[in-house]
Structures are given as structure tokens and as C-alpha cells.
């Protein structure tokens, strides 16, 4: 749960007030998710497919946001996620799921407020990608033997 907070992606998303701010923060949040997923692929063999697919969905989301006309051209770039190498893969998955939930909410809200079809379509597509990440990372049963 702490991961996305420490990377700054969560607070940026919450603080974003305008559509360009939401889009810029979403771009960075998807990047954080992608980097976290890639860094965690090797931790648990049974979770390789989950993390790889989540990274793929994060790229989809980032590409969708990139297509939004209101995305500001510059950018600070995503801060490197602060997940330690020895952080439990399940904890990382929980953090990614929480960030994806927040992303989905903000993007759906932004879609509703968008004035142009381009922004609305981009926000909806990105929200759909966030939904997929959430679905992939949400924990169903906690099988201790997999850890």
C-alpha cells in the first residue's frame, strides 16, 4: 500500500485539479505501475503472468493517455517507484491494485468532465486499462504456499 504513496503517483493523482493535471498524473501513475510490475516479475514464478500482463495493461493505459489532446506536452517523468527489491510480491500487487483503483476513479471522473471527444475517449480507454490492472492485481484467495 505504501508503494504508490512513496513514488508520489497517488498524491499527484489526488491533487490533480484540472484535466491536464489528471492526464499528466495518470501518465506518471501508469509508468509507476509498469515499472513496479516489471521489477516484480521474477519474484514468484506463479505471479509472472500476472505481473507481465499488468505491465502490458499499464502500457495500454499510458498510450491511451498520450493520445489525449489535453495532455500537457512537457513532463517531469515518473519518479522511480520506491519498492525495495525484497518487498513481498503480494504487497507490491496490493499497492498496484490500490493505485489502479485510484487511477480508474480519477480517469472516469475526467472522462465525464472532458469537453472534447478526443479527451473523453482517451480517458475512457485509460480507465479501462486501469480496471484491467485492478482485476489482475486484486487478491482472491491468499495461498500462503505460493509465497
Amino acid at each position: 500500500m505504501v508503494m504508490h504513496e512513496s513514488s508520489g503517483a497517488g498524491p499527484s493523482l489526488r491533487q490533480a485539479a484540472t484535466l491536464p493535471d489528471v492526464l499528466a498524473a495518470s501518465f506518471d501513475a501508469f509508468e509507476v505501475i509498469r515499472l513496479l510490475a516489471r521489477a516484480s516479475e521474477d519474484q514468484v514464478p506463479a505471479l509472472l503472468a500476472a505481473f507481465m500482463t499488468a505491465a502490458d495493461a499499464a502500457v495500454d493505459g499510458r498510450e491511451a493517455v498520450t493520445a489525449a489532446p489535453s495532455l500537457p506536452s512537457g513532463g517531469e517523468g515518473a519518479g522511480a517507484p520506491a519498492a525495495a527489491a525484497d518487498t513481498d510480491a503480494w504487497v507490491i500487487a496490493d499497492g498496484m491494485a490500490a493505485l489502479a483503483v485510484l487511477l480508474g476513479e480519477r480517469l472516469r471522473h475526467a472522462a465525464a468532465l472532458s469537453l472534447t471527444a478526443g479527451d473523453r475517449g482517451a480517458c475512457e480507454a485509460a480507465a479501462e486499462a486501469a480496471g484491467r490492472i485492478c482485476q489482475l492485481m486484486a487478491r482472491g484467495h491468499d495461498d500462503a504456499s505460493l509465497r
Partner: protein
Amino acid sequence: MTPVFGEFLGPAGRHITAAASFRDELPDAAKYGAIRQLERLATTLARYVGDLDLPDEFDPGSDLGLDFDVRPALDARTALRRAASSLRRTATTVCDTAADDEHPSVMHLRAAADYLAAGRDLLRTHFAAPPGGEMARNSFWAPLLTSGQLTAALLTELAALARQLAPWAAQLSVTGPMSSGDSIALHVASRWMWIAGASIESAQRQQPPPASARQLLISVPANVPPARRPPDGPEPVAGLSEGITITSERLRHAAAAFASQARWSPAANSVSWRRDALASAITGHCSEFILRALAQRAAELCIDPAIPARLAAAADVMATVWPAWRSVAHHWDIVSTGTSTGAGISPVAAESGDLALRLGRLAYRNPQWTPACSETSLVRIPEDLAATPEDISRVLSAVHQATDATTRIATEDREAVRAAAFDNRLYVPTRMMPDGWDMPYRYSPAPASFVDDLLITYDTAIMANKHAVAVLDDLAAAIGTPSHLLGMARTISASQQAQLKHLSDAPAEPQQPDMLPQPGPLGRILRDLQISEPRALLRAAAIDKAAHDLTAQAKAQSQRRGRSQRHPNPLRTSLRSRSRVLPQPGNAYTKSVKREVITAATTRFAPVMSSVARRSGSLKHRRGTDVVIRLAWLAVVRSVLASFET
């Protein structure tokens, strides 16, 4: 399941044997029926041999690089054509006579002719004949079908049928109720059939085709993908294995079909290639688990002690495959073909997920496994995966099929990515570039180092996949899995390529850097003008493809016209002599054809051109693009006319 050639060839042979077993003299009405069916059979046999990729009888210089003696095949082709011609004459003269088509021997002959015709249709599904164009290979089986070994195997089968029919036709010629002229024609036909059979058999007595070639021939499937079977609910191991085989077959079809569109289709985009890489990585990862479980189970079942070790070795090889694919997927995190809203994904990418899902369900205990964390589970216990040695064979076959399919997809994807790179259609998000990266657009052209790295990772993944496929080919042959045909086909294909390479001294792999696909006239113009807008480039590729098709069509029409002028059809000649309404070659004629081509080109390209112009950016940019498009349009029309004139 998809029908295979053996399902038609086998019954055809049995029906001919049954018909030839009638030694008693047939009633006259049945003889007429038999003559008609014999004519159908001889015509079909002649068409089979006519379809073969053989050199022209009168062109000794033509050499197709076949690794067998073509002279007997040419003799057989001539003999069967003459047999069919003789029988056609006899059949025409008796066509008005009442015939008994219900006599058992006639029914057998009719069934044999039907089966043979259907078998030929099946083989021809592997070749496409565009209107006015020449036959083109249309599937992964097509190069095999034109290989020397399969050609020789097919000729052996046809020769055996002709040899069975010849004495029977001869007997009919001496007992038949026809006129002496028809009897002689029937006898002549029987002689030609005998010559056809004998010429092939005598040649192949010295150099018989390998048994594997016949086995492969009868296993050639129709070039029709099996119906999709989406993985919706839990399936037993047998169902999963069958589903993997079906999906692999569908993916092979889709990869071959999409390859020709990869240069211009909007669905040939980074999303599709990224999905393919993801599915290949998951498929390889699950395959490794499955092979390890199979190795353990083979040891438990105490089958041949070499098999568990070979299965374990195959698992080790598979352990190098999926990391290579993961590396490809990592590269696609950054590189992109730009925004592709509404373009969709390729048919391969749309279905490659099915393969990964089923392999996952085969590898893990959870029957409803998905990549989601909520569905993670432990890997299957070996006994659950394969209770008996037959189960080992079935599951190994599924893994083999999946690995073969991903290898073929990978090869097509690499070529498509290479073409996209050459067309400058690969980008990176500008926001992800370092500070000071001066680019006012959302995407920047991908730096050359990124593209090189991407292509290198593809090469590495393909090499790893090919190694795994080779190991699985050997293993499948040793265990005798249903998929062992894949390895057999690869061996014959490799020997054919080696033969061609030896003859032409050309490089076997056409993927050298100096042989990159070249953009068409419009693509070159846009590239020279440094226009890198993805949609404009994609449309340019589409227009170039359309121009290429139109050129090919015009050339084919021109060639047909030339042929008909060199070898005038009597019917056409008589029509021409009666009425001089057809245009004659000359200035007026050429001008009218030019006008026709310009009209066709205008109709075909104008909407696309205006659409490109409409969609390209600012007014200033649009005006510039308009000029470019007009120039390009003229270049395309000129190239069409130039190729037409040549």
C-alpha cells in the same frame, strides 16, 4: 477437425480397386457408364499432374531445383493428358446413349472420381489464384507441396491408380459395344494410362520417395482454419490439449494470412506485437512447467529411460525461450507505432491469448487459471497431468504445437517490425525522453539504438524458439506424438531449401539487412520529404499496395491478351473474322487502355488521397501534403502505366 488429403486419396484407391475387381463382362449400359467415369478419372489424374510445379517439356533450360528426376513426371503428364483426351472423345460419342450408372463397378468409379477431385481441391486450397494472376503459395504447407519429395510421393500414388485403371480400360475396349473408332480410342487411352504409371514406377524403383513423404502427403490438411474454440470453462487435460492444437493451427493460419497485410494494415501495430510477445512469454513459461512435470511422470511410469532425460532437457531449453520473449515485451514498453485508436489488433494477437490461457490451465492446478493474482495456483502434479504414457504423448504434442505456432508468429512479427522500422513508423513517447529532448509532438521517432535493440531481441527470441522446436521435433518423433508431422515437414522443407540454395547459391535466409522490404513510390516520396506522421505513412503503404495490385492485374491482363494473340482460340478467331468490333493493337488501342488505367487509378486512389489530405494536421501542413499527394498520385499513375507498357 480439418480434413486431410489421405481422407480422399485412400477411399479413391479403394474404390478403384473395387471397380477393377469386377472381372466379368459388364452389361452394355454399364459399359457406357464406366467409360464416362473413366474419362472423369483420367481427366482428374491429368489435372493433378498438371498442377505440379514441373518445368515445361519444351524448355530444357528451365530448372526448378527439384531433387528428383523430372523426366518421368513430364512423360506421365503428357501420357495422362493424351489418355484424358482419347477418353473424352469416346465419352462424348456415347454421352447420348442410355447408361447404367447404378452398376456397382460404375458407382465405384464415380466415387473414386469424386474423391480424387475433392482431394485435388483440398491441395489447391494451399495456393491462391488472384484474378488474372498466377498461382501463389498461400500457406505454410504450400512450399512442402511443391517440394521434390512430396511431388514424388504424389506421383507414386497417381501412378498406382493409373496402373490399376489401364488394364481395366483395355478390357473394356475389346468387349465394349462401341464403334471401332471409339474402341480404338479407349484402347489408346488405356495404353497412355499404362505408360503414365510405368514411367513413374520405373523411375521410382531406382529412387523411391521416402516413406515419411507419403505419410506427410496423406496428412496435408485443407487450408481452412478449424473453428475457434474459446477457453470458456474448465476443461480436462485431453480437452485442453485438443484446444491448444486447434488454437495453434488457427494461429498458424492467421499468421500466414496476415503476413501479406503487415506492411499496410492498421492492425499491424505495436499493440498487436506487444500482445504476441506477452502471449509467447507466458506460453513458454507454462510449457517449461509442463515439460518438467512430464519428465518426472515419464520417470515414474518407467518408460524408455532416455525419454525423461530428453523431456528434462527440453524443459531446460524452454527455460531460455520465455526470458527471451519477456525481453521483447520489455522493449515494447517504450517503443510504439503511435496512437492507434480504433485500429484494433491483428487476428493473431486477438487469439494468442487463448493459447497462453490453455497452456496455463494445463500447467497449473486451477482449472480456471487466468493470469490474475486471484487465480494463481500451484503447478499440477505430474500424475494429474499425465496418468498414462498416452497422456504424456498427448500433452507433449500440445506443447510442441504451441511452440511451433509461436515460432511462426515470431518470424512474421519480426519481419513486420523490420518493415515498420524501415518505414520510420516506430516511435517513443516524447514525455519519456530525457530533459532537453527537442520534439514538439507527443511521439518522437524511435532512436536507431532502440530499434536495433528491439530487432536483436526478436532475433534472440526466434533463435531460442527454433532451438526448442528442434528439440521437441526429435522428442515427438521418438515418442510418436501426433505432432511428429511438424518435425517431418520441417526436415523435408529444410532439405528442399538446401537443394535450392545449392542450385542458386543464394542465401537461405532472406532477412539480411540489405534485403529489407523497400517502400513503394509514394512511401519513398514521403520518406524523402521527411514526413513521419504515422497515418500518412500507413496510408502511403496502403496506396502503394493498391498500386502494386493494380499493376499486377494490368500486367496479367496484358499477358493474357498477348497469349491469346500468339495462340488464337479458334472460336475467338472466327468471332473476330466475323466482326471487327474488337480494338486492334496500335496507338488508338494503347491510348484507350491508358485511359482505362487512369480512370481505374483515379477511382481507386482519389478518395484515399483526399482522405490523407483531410486528416493531415494544420491548414498549412494540409496544403503541403496536398501538393505531395498530387505529385505522388502522378508518380503512382505513371508507374502503373510504365509497368503496363513494359
